[in-house]
């Protein structure tokens, strides 16, 4: 009973925010990573790499943790394989870890730097930032190739990173 409370709460929050298409992100809060949470894409324990962690929250309260933005996008762009029966519209919020603050920021509006000299637990990564200026500074300091947004992420790009 007690254990159900957070998920019920998340569901309630999701329902409240269901009206506005993506406004859900503003209301949903990032979840704490549990010691048993595994990345559904690569199978690694996420709690060992909190600095790169990402998560997807579905509107029904389900939460999936990832050990990097790359795996999160792999999952996001291929829901039919990793979460059969769910659609992109079921996603309530996406969170990624800002490189500088190590705080979870909205993954849908974040800026990502690719081609930098910073490697995540799964090798080459998309390094997330909450603002464009941060991404720009990082790109300069760490020889990043370019800054991209969510809409620029494609399966082809992810394949290049692997």
């Amino acid at each position, binding site marked *: 009973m007690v254990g159900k409370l957070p998920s019920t709460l998340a569901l309630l929050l999701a329902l409240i925010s269901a009206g506005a298409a993506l406004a859900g992100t503003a209301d949903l809060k990032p979840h704490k990573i549990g010691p048993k949470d595994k990345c559904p894409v690569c199978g690694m324990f996420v709690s060992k790499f909190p*600095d790169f962690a990402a998560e997807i929250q579905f509107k029904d309260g389900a939460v999936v943790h990832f050990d990097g933005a790359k795996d999160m996008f792999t999952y996001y762009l291929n829901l039919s394989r990793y979460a059969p029966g769910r659609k992109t519209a079921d996603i309530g919020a996406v969170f990624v870890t800002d*490189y500088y603050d190590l*705080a979870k920021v909205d993954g849908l509006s974040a800026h990502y730097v690719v081609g930098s000299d*910073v490697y995540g637990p799964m090798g080459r990564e998309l390094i997330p930032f909450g603002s464009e200026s*941060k991404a720009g*500074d990082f790109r300069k*300091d*760490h020889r990043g190739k370019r800054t991209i947004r969510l809409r620029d992420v494609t399966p082809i790009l992810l394949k290049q990173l692997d």
Partner: protein
Amino acid sequence: MAHMIERHRHIIDFTLATLLRRKGKNGGLLLVYTLIIFVLASVIFFTEAIKREAMLVLRDSPEIIVQRTLAGRYQTVPISWCDGIGSIRGVSSVQPRLWGYHFDRTRRANYTFMVPAQAPPQSGHVDLGSAVARIQGATAGDTIALQGHDGAPRAFTVRKVLESESQLLTADLILISERDYRDFSGLPAGQATDLVLQVRNQREYATIVEKIARMHHDARPILRSEILRTYDAVFDWRSGVMIVIFSAAALAFLIFAWDKATGLSADERTEIGILKAVGWESSDILLMKFWEGTAISLTAFMVGTILAYVHVFLTSATLFAPVLKGWSTLYPYFRLTPWLDFRQVATLFLLTVVPYTITTIVPSWRAATIDPDVVMR
């Protein structure tokens, strides 16, 4: 099963009786053996405990400290640096710190002055560490006088005496307000002792340090990991010195033990022969020798380890603290938090008890397999 235990019990009984029969020789061996283990265990316990204490202190220390150097010597840092350094990406905060040392000539003691970031005492008041309070003989509400940088004495009222949870951290500390400290130490306005940086992502340390060095050529950024490494190296070096000093003793023991363990005396050979003649099997003799080795080395190990524990944690390592602590002269009373690492004890055990026990078995096995008639003759 019961029969097995009974057999071992009888053999141990017999072994102990044999050992007691040669009190002088075995007692001497036990004494030297215990001493060696005591020394080794003391060194291990002490260095580990003091390292832990240092880690405890440094755990809460800032990720990056920025100092300034002039002609290679330490200088105060202009507070105006904060803006530039604070704007570096990845730095979440920059705080100037004010602190320093003070030698009290009248009482011949060193104090550490510090302006705390949170809840500093108001002007004219100070908080004293436990050792300072004892040296000054002051309690809360008393007034103490300290000579400032210009030679003029200044009076402070003691706000409180700091609780000493970690002796290393607070014993010699005096907390003071910023205004009083600048007046007392002569530190000019606009200057700080050093700057402390909070950086969330440790992957950025190298980049930030590089940027600071580029921004101010006389800046000297220090990473917490470097401080930790230095502490580690210093304590490892000190314990190394101790080990080297005592390795001579250890070597002497080794020769002694080797001689005792490998070469069986004529007495012992005859004894083995007699035992075989009265019907003991070779395995019984080996068992007896095994228990003999175990009895001596286990006793030495336990007594030595317990003595070392008492020595290090209850008497503050009086015997070799001067070598190991070095700067400990500052602290009239300094007690380490007791801490026992099972792995270290196990290592010590494996390095002392096991080899000794094994070396005693081999020669007895040789003696035990020879014809009793030849051995006795």
